[in-house]
């Protein structure tokens, strides 16, 4: 006879011990260190920091180790930790114009002040598996760059276009504190700062897919990469008791300024518009996709018809978070037998009525 299942606690403990063993893998293989993950899985660490909304490479590397390399799980660990941290204030805006660039490219101008700097990129690598890497060799040192006169000045392409009035100006800083979607529930319509926050921490795959959809005609924006830059910027903070900015350190960022569809009217001359992307670490895919979606989400503000998913802020903001998405999709594996029982009862009753009715119709026909 049936005996109610007991022992959930023991089962959970055992599952977690098994997980720890599976995480370690074959004990004959040396254990990964957090330093190795941080140094050699740097782009993965960057992604966890970006979607975890917390710039801490060591913590992100540790989370990846704990999560067996599962990105969303690692993001989850970082976010759950982040939410326990006290807030002591907001930094001053970082100046990406003063970035020490490791990479900087423009697709709109062949040459420009500061030059095109390819930097460490997969672009133009031939995607052939390098079996030599399996043999753990040493790497040939990178070439030193030729010094350039203008290496220290690397103005943003959008700033150069602004001088001629060819692109809409960056919205002025009104000094108002930016909202924080981790501290206040989002109220629709959300302003651009909140939308950018959501996109910056949004799932890379989801944002990429949405950005891609705009290129295929679902909210087209005629984008050009004005500029992508990757490098380190200083983070400064103004402590109330000092009244002046003190440096806290440097963080690596990727910024993408997308120059998009121009608009004009009888009153205003035609001007290009902007889409903006910014992420922690080096992630051009994410920053580019983000800038496409940012621009698409400005449709209403720019008087364009809102017809596509990428232009619909409730659709984008409510679904771009990987933790919310994975939690709700995966909750389907929790028991639902009470609700399923309710559905079973109804479907059985409806089927009984269906067969009773069709029997009586048949009898009537005979």
């Amino acid at each position: 006879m049936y005996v109610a299942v007991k022992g959930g606690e023991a089962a959970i403990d055992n599952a977690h011990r098994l997980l720890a063993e599976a995480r370690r893998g074959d004990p004959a293989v040396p254990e990964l260190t957090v330093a190795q993950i941080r140094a050699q899985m740097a782009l993965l660490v960057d992604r966890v920091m970006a979607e975890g909304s917390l710039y801490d490479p060591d913590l992100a590397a540790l989370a990846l180790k704990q999560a067996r390399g599962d990105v969303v799980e690692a993001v989850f660990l970082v976010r759950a930790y982040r939410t326990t941290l006290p807030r002591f204030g907001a930094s001053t805006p970082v100046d990406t114009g003063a970035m020490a660039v490791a990479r900087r490219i423009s697709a709109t101008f062949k040459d420009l002040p500061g030059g095109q700097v390819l930097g460490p990129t997969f672009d133009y690598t031939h995607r052939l598996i390098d079996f030599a890497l399996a043999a753990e060799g040493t790497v040939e040192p990178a070439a030193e760059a030729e010094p350039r006169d203008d290496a220290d000045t690397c103005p943003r392409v959008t700033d150069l276009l602004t001088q001629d009035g060819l692109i809409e100006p960056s919205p002025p800083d009104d000094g108002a504190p930016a909202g924080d979607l981790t501290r206040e529930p989002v109220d629709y319509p959300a302003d651009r700062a909140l939308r950018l926050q959501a996109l910056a921490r949004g799932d890379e795959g989801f944002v990429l897919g949405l950005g891609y959809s705009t290129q295929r005609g679902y909210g087209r924006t005629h984008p050009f990469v004005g500029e992508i830059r990757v490098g380190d910027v200083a983070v400064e903070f103004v402590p109330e008791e000092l009244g002046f900015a003190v440096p806290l350190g440097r963080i690596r960022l990727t910024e993408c300024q997308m120059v998009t569809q121009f608009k004009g009217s009888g009153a205003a001359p035609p001007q290009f518009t902007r889409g903006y992307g910014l992420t922690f670490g080096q992630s051009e895919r994410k920053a580019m996709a983000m800038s496409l979606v940012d621009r698409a989400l400005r449709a209403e503000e720019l008087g364009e018809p809102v017809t596509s998913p990428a232009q619909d802020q409730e659709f984008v903001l409510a679904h771009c978070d990987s933790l919310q998405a994975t939690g709700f999709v995966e909750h389907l594996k929790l028991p639902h037998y009470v609700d399923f029982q309710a559905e079973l009862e109804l479907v059985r009753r409806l089927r009984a009525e269906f067969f009773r009715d069709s029997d009586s119709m048949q009898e009537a026909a005979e």
Partner: protein
Amino acid sequence: MIRRAILKAIAVPGYQVPFASREMPMPYGWGTGGVQVTAAILGRADVLKVIDQGADDTTNAVSIRRFFARTSGIATTTRTTEATIIQTRHRIPETPLREGQTLVYQVPIPEPLRFLEPRETETRQLHALAEYGAMHVKLYEDISRHGHIATTYAYPVEVAGRYVMDPSPTPKFDNPKMDQSPALQLFGAGRERRIYAVPPYTSVRSLDFEDHPFRVQQFDQPCALCGAEGVYLDEMLLDDAGRRMFVCSDTDHCEGRRADGHVGTGDAV
């Protein structure tokens, strides 16, 4: 911040109060709203019970109960009568609740109109205007298509004659227990960032029509273990020949009855 949202929710029964849900150490969709509400109201003297599908020993209930035992050092119980706070997913205990008890529901989708109108901007307006026609049309369409209202869980209710509310995905069997309950009922939706409440002794009416009155599920047989009738049952598959057995979904209720000497037939059907 959460306590303020709870107070507002109690002051406006059935109204969904936005709150800044935080990331919890368990996934969204797994009770983060309930966990935040419970954490906000737990006091040292409280005794916590956590159930999922009516049972205390389902894995997620075990996990949440342990979380609170570990982080707050709170006393826990599996007995409905001993608990001051009961966090639940998908069921209301069979044992009637009393004054002073609080039932905390885990809610996946707090918006009863969500599947009729996906936009938050629209649904908030519909609630503000008490414009619930679409819901009645949906229920009417069920009747015209199937002969019955085809909603069996998360069955919409009207609270205190004003707001239409999602009772969370409890089977509609449990809806009547919400009406005029002496206990405080709090609802937490973490991912959707909403808290709502039904204060004690508040009217909770399941939507229906005069010629199609609201009815709860009926089971043809009593619990096979304790012989209880008029309770919600789980269907257990016993073998691959279609033999099954119906037993209480509320494990505490079933165990209590058996301890009192009630015995079911133990029969499969």
